[in-house]
């Protein structure tokens, strides 16, 4: 109960502070880390912050426990020129990215820091956590943003990307956003920013509201081991649909992906049929990808699949059915049997340098 009293008084003081300082932007980024490094997609959130306004100091919030967290913090301090501060929440409560402790953490950090914007990438972490935090802060978030037109105006896809909605946020600070990493590419950072890295500080968790923490427990994460690059950020993606007919046949897709140095993707139908695990699904409710080259084999091109890949630079489609909707978005189409085309491609494609 005492914690709540302290928090309420903190919030009153900082509400005053934030309305005074509301003209200047400052952004809190909810970052993910793994194995001692910042995840690449979190950097997209930083890129998005830089496009909100020129002078927008960015604080990166990391949570976890142990040495890999501290390692990630060190790397975060020099990961991007816009990052001026790294906040570290070190506790067993954050051993896994659960929404309940994370939302309370964001509420605590926001009430203390009075940021004008809070941004996360629109992956399963950001999607799971940001709205819960927004409800605690009593603000409407804008999710899955693909374009930023100013500090409070954003564009987001609706109806599986068949329409774009421009929205204006008219509420109090913070303006909370989740952004599509494919829409905010990170320019290559030249060299090491060893000089002028960000400051690293520990978040004081003594006043963290315990209510609702502990009601959820992480049991396990099942992932497939793979040598293939990450689907969300690969330069080339090779996708198979239900026409592959079996999990065994999907090995052909794997081989082609390996030849091209590509990630493997799949349609909902292929995942439903059990050919591949769910994390390979590309589409409206799966992963959104925008690679240089997207090759779709035996994919009909349902609206919901297109939603996940139509921003690819070059799209190639191979399908036996000349009327398949996929050909309407493909730059290069081949009407043919994938069971003949793929082996021919494997034979004739130049070796990857």
């Amino acid at each position, binding site marked *: 109960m005492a914690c709540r009293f302290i928090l309420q008084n903190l919030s009153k003081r900082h509400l005053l502070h934030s309305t005074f300082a509301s003209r200047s932007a400052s952004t809190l980024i909810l970052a993910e880390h793994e194995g001692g490094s910042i995840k690449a997609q979190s950097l997209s959130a930083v890129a998005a912050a830089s496009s909100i306004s020129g002078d927008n100091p960015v604080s990166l919030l990391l949570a976890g426990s142990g040495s890999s967290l501290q390692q990630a913090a060190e790397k975060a301090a020099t990961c991007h020129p816009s990052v001026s501060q790294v906040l570290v929440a070190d506790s067993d409560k954050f051993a896994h990215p659960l*929404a309940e402790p994370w*939302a309370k953490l964001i509420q605590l950090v926001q009430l203390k820091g009075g940021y004008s914007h809070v941004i996360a990438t629109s992956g*399963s*972490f950001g*999607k*799971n956590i940001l*709205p*819960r*935090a*927004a*409800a*605690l802060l*009593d*603000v*409407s978030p*804008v*999710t*899955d943003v693909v374009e930023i037109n100013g500090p409070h105006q954003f564009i*987001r*896809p609706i*109806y*599986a990307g*068949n*329409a*774009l*909605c*421009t929205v*204006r946020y*008219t*509420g109090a600070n913070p303006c909370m956003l989740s952004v599509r990493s494919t829409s905010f590419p990170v320019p290559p950072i030249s060299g090491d920013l060893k000089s002028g890295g960000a400051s690293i500080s520990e978040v004081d968790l003594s006043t963290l509201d315990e209510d609702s923490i502990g*009601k*959820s*427990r*992480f*049991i396990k*994460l*099942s*992932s497939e081991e793979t040598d293939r690059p990450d689907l*969300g950020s690969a330069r*080339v993606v090779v996708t198979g649909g239900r026409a592959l007919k079996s999990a065994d046949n999907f090995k052909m897709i794997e081989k082609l992906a390996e030849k091209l140095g590509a990630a493997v993707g799949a349609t909902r139908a292929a995942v439903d049929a059990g050919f591949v695990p*769910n*994390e390979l699904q590309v589409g*409206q*409710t799966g992963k959104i990808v925008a690679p*240089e*080259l997207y090759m779709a084999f035996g994919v009909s091109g349902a*609206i919901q699949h297109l939603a996940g890949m*139509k921003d690819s630079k*070059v799209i*190639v489609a191979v399908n036996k059915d000349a009327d398949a909707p996929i050909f309407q*978005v*493909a730059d*290069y*189409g*081949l009407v043919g049997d994938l069971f003949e085309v793929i082996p*021919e*491609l494997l034979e*004739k*494609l*130049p070796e990857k340098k």
Partner: protein
Amino acid sequence: MKIMVAVKRVVDYAVKIRVKPDKSGVETQNVKMSMNPFCEIALEEALKIKESGLAKEVVAVSMGPSNCVDTLRTGLAMGADRAIHVEASRDLVPLTVAKLLKKLVEIENPGLLILGKQAIDDDCNQTGQMIAGLLGWPQGTFASKVVFDKEKQVATVDREVDGGLETLCLDLPAVITTDLRLNQPRYATLPNIMKAKSKPIKKFTLEELNVEIKSDIEVVQVTEPPKRKAGVILSSVDELIDKLKNEAHVI
């Protein structure tokens, strides 16, 4: 245990939508409307839990204008016991929907709240997470499998996440949002459609529930996405490789 399921009436998933010429929104007049596919899955899961003996009652809830009642009747026809319609003449942002749901949860006291992970019209994917936050309940979002332990009063949820399948254990009461592979929703049979006509639908107005209507998001315009340039159909693998290498420069 009572299960509450929130459902939304949306443009049918197979419809090819059109943006209105005045850019104020998407054309929904004379367009086929259906229960949001994720909401159907949510309702199906609630019904399965009830049929396995772990819950006594399934209550379907929807918020919006009077045509919401059509969607609620579909829910009742699928097997929900009762329905609640919160009448609202304007669009409600997810935060307002969450606050209204909180009021209903306080009235109805369910042990489980199930929602679809997102509505296929606005694709927001927010409401379930928000209501969980407001209630202080644990959340299991993007669920592809749910197993209950009545004795321990916990739900073990498999979630589809970027890295694969994450398994969480949640204390009840909890909020679950459904992903595509959780189940296959049943069709309403004709006898059940007839029975549904006499199942009760309680109506609430916004005033009665006394909830702050949030209006901090303004729609400026709705536009069509940029169209891709038309592509070409090629006649051989050799031609494809040539184009990819020498024209598109991607390999």
